[in-house]
Structures are given as structure tokens and as C-alpha cells.
């Protein structure tokens, strides 16, 4: 059976060639997971959020307009909202737990990894990690990343250069 990778939707005067959801999910899954891994700094959370992101994208796939951006940028926007919602609910959970179980130790979290680079990445802030992920790993352009993050292009490139500089310094310190 031949796989359908793109469909054409047309209304009078509005003709849009859109890829299929399954094709997009197949090609962008690793990118979204990579981004969430860098953003959260936690493999387990990143895996959960990746699944959630694609479920959310599946529900609102009809609203995706390829003329307004790439599927990757659109998915990263959803992933970011999902991650922020997760951080918010985690914060509430932590506050509740601090109130009722101050003495309990923090649950052990699965970090990025045990290497030098992973450790250095873990010491960056989530905002710095996400800009590195979007620009360096996912190779999205500056204006797209700025749009996903909701900041200006200048702020985006400043954040990226600061994050890479800190990362380099930490790596150099680790090597020395």
C-alpha cells in the first residue's frame, strides 16, 4: 500500500498543501523529544511530555497552517506550552508537598546523562538549554525560535551566545 505523506485541502480560493499528521510525527518525533529533553533536563519527563505534545498536536492538527511555519516550529510551540504547564503543575505539587511533607527527600530524577557535557548542560537554566536545543540541535532559524519562545530575535541570539559561552567555559573547566 502506498503511504500518503501529503494531502491537499481546498476551499474556494484557499488551497493548502499539507503533510499528513503521521508523516510529520514520524519525521519530527526525535526533534521534539530532543528539545523537551534539553528544556526539562530530565529524560523521563521529556518522554512523557513528548507523548503529550503529539497527542495535543493530533487533536488540533486541523489548525496547522503550513503557510505560517514549518511543522517542526509548530510542534515545538506546542511542546513548550506543554512543558510550561508541566513546570507549573510541578511547582504546585512541590508547594503542596513542602507544606505537608517537609521531611521527605526529593524523588530521584533521571538527569540528561553522566558525561561532562550532560553535567554542564544540567547546570544551565532551562531557558538556556531550550534555546541551545532549538538553534543547535533542531537547527531552526533565529526568527522561528524567537517566535516559539515569544521573545525578540535579538534576545534570542543573546541568550544563545550566553548559553554556549557558559557551556564552553564549563567544559574547559571540566577538561582542565
Amino acid at each position, binding site marked *: 500500500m502506498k503511504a500518503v505523506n501529503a494531502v491537499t*485541502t481546498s*476551499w474556494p480560493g*484557499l488551497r*493548502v498543501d*499539507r503533510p*499528513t*499528521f*503521521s508523516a510529520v*510525527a*514520524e519525521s519530527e*518525533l*526525535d526533534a*521534539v*523529544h*530532543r528539545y523537551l*529533553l*534539553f*528544556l*526539562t*533536563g530530565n529524560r523521563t519527563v521529556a*518522554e512523557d511530555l*513528548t*507523548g503529550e505534545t*503529539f*497527542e495535543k498536536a*493530533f*487533536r488540533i*492538527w*486541523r*489548525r*496547522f*497552517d503550513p503557510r*505560517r511555519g514549518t511543522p517542526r516550529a509548530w510542534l515545538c510551540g506546542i511542546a513548550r506550552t506543554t512543558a*510550561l504547564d508541566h*513546570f*507549573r503543575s510541578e*511547582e504546585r505539587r512541590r508547594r503542596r508537598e513542602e507544606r505537608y511533607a517537609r521531611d521527605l527527600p526529593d524523588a530521584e530524577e533521571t538527569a*540528561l*546523562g553522566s558525561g561532562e*557535557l*550532560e553535567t554542564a548542560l544540567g547546570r544551565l*537554566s*532551562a*531557558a538556556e538549554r*531550550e534555546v*541551545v536545543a532549538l538553534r*543547535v*540541535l533542531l537547527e531552526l532559524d533565529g526568527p522561528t525560535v524567537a517566535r516559539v519562545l*515569544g*521573545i525578540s530575535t535579538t534576545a534570542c541570539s543573546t541568550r544563545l551566545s550566553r548559553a*554556549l559561552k557558559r*557551556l*564552553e567555559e564549563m*567544559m*574547559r573547566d571540566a577538561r582542565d
Partner: protein
Amino acid sequence: MPATDVDFEREFEELVRDLRALPTAAPTDVRERVRALGEPARPRTLHDLLLTLSLPRSLLVLAPVCVLALVSAAVIHGLVNSSGNSGHTASAKQPLDLRAQAEHGAAGGTSTTPVFGALAKPLAPSLPTPAAGRYQDYEASLTVRVKDVDALHDRTAEATQLARTYGGYVASVDESTNSGNGRSDLVLRIPVNRVEDAYFRLARLGTVTEQHLSIRDLDQVVQTQRRRIVQLKVQIARIDEALKSSSLPADVRLRLELQRDAAKQELAQVTGSNKATLREASLSRISLTLTSQKAAVATKGGMSRIERAARDAGSFLAGAGAVVLFLLIVLSPLIVLALAWILGSRAYRRREERRLLSAA
């Protein structure tokens, strides 16, 4: 610290390479979970498309659409109004068989014949001749524009003189001036048999902007009055004849005398009415208005259809603009509040995001 720019570049490339080499592929269970989602069943609808429209994008689309709709409505309004007026202009330009109309009015009893209303261009005066041998109430009104106030005085005097020249008189004169503009309203009574000449002389006092003629046939009225006069005279003569008899009882004599007095009174009344009717029929009434003002009506009438349509469309747009301005003024507090709310919530959301990301 990197010794040179080359070292820096090399370190940076190594860092990027290391970052990209990190094991970040999605695990199999996540991949299977995503694959299991399949393909959304429902196709895209127009509602989905509308949901993708952002506020700035919607405004970018809606604003030109609204302006276009408004301009189209203005053009249609202008065209419809100008075509409505054109019928009036056409009737003004259409040559009228006035003489025939006057004759028709005479034959049919009482009629009023408008010659022209507000007219598109300065008029060449035209007037139906009074029907010879018939009694008619002949009324005409004429609006004549003169150059200035000085000319207005001269023409008023000239019109008065004209009325006397033709054996008529001036029934009333009302002259007024105000800030460089003036107006004279004259009512002239001219013998019907000379009304045509008088009318054309009056029309030459300036530029005719409006004229109107009314002819009311009085022939039937005069005939009725005359018949009644004859009837009353016969009745009075008969009563007089009857009263000459000496054998009449006293009560009958008294009743006849009362009848004769009533008949004489009615005769006097009908005779008076008849004389008034004949006087009315012998003298025409010309209402002459002399003005130094530029007639607004004449200016309106003088415009072409395109000019009228443009003017109507312009006034429609001005009205719509006034409504929009009014709504903006009324709704401006709400708009300011809405903008403040949007900007405030956006700033709050960004601050909240920064806080969450720094805590993560």
C-alpha cells in the same frame, strides 16, 4: 581561555558536534505511542481555518474588507440617489405641450398646470397663452436671479413700473437685504390679455431659475353664477307680480315678502361673487421673486449624474465616518481597557514563563 580565534572556532565546532552526538532519539515506547495516534479523521473545515487566524491577521483582513464594503455601499447609495434625481431632471428638460395642457384644463374644469419646478439650467421663459373667450384664474410665479443688491433695487423698481405699463398694479412688495444678499417678493396683477408680454418682460430682468404656472378654469363658475342670478331675478319678479294682487291673505303676503327679501339678499351676494370672479379672471396674478443669491437648488440641479453620485457617496461616507468616530469615542474606554488587559496578560505570561524556566 582559547589562544586565538582559530582555537575558539575549533572549540565551538567541537561543542556543537558533541551536543549533536548526545543520545537524544525518542525511545521506542514513545515512538509506538505516537504512531498509535494515526491520522486525524475529520477533514479541515472553514471553522478550523478561522481558528488559525490571529488578531493582527484578522484585523489586516477585516479592515480592508470593511473599508471596501463601506465604499461599495457609498457608491451604490450615490448611484441609486443620482438615478432617483435624474427623473426629476428629465422632466425638467422634457418639452411640455403647455398650451395643450392649458386647453385640456379649460375643457375639463379646474386644473393646475405646473410648468417647471426646480430646474437644472437657467430657463428660457415659456408660458401658455390664456384661452380666449374663457374665464380663467391665471397665476404664475417666477424666480429671477439678479447680479447683486444694487441690481435687485433697480429690477424691483423696473418690475413695478412694468405692472403699471401693462395696466395692472402691484398688490404687494417685500424687499429685504442681508449681508450682501437681497430678495424682493412682488405680487403683480396684470390684465390677462397682456400677461404674456408682461411675463416675458419680467423674465428678462435676470436669470430665470424657477417658474411655475397655475391655471384654474372659472368658466363653469361664472356660468353657474349667471344662471343663479337669472333664476333669482325671475323669482323676485314673480313674487313682485304676486304681491300686486289685493286678494292675498295677510299671512301669504307676509311669506312672499320674506321670500322676496331672501331672494334679493342672495341675488346681491351672487352678483358680488360674480363680479369678483370676473375681476379674478380679468387680472392675472404674477408672484415675482427677485434674488441676488446663488440658488442652491439651481446648483444642485446643474450637476451631472456622476457629480451627484460622487456627492451623495461622499456624504454617505462622511455620515459613516461620523458614526465610526462616535462609536470610537463611546467605546474608547473599553478599547483602552481591552488593550491594557491584553498587554498586561502578555507581560504576566512572559514573566511567569521566565520564572518557571529559571526554577526548572
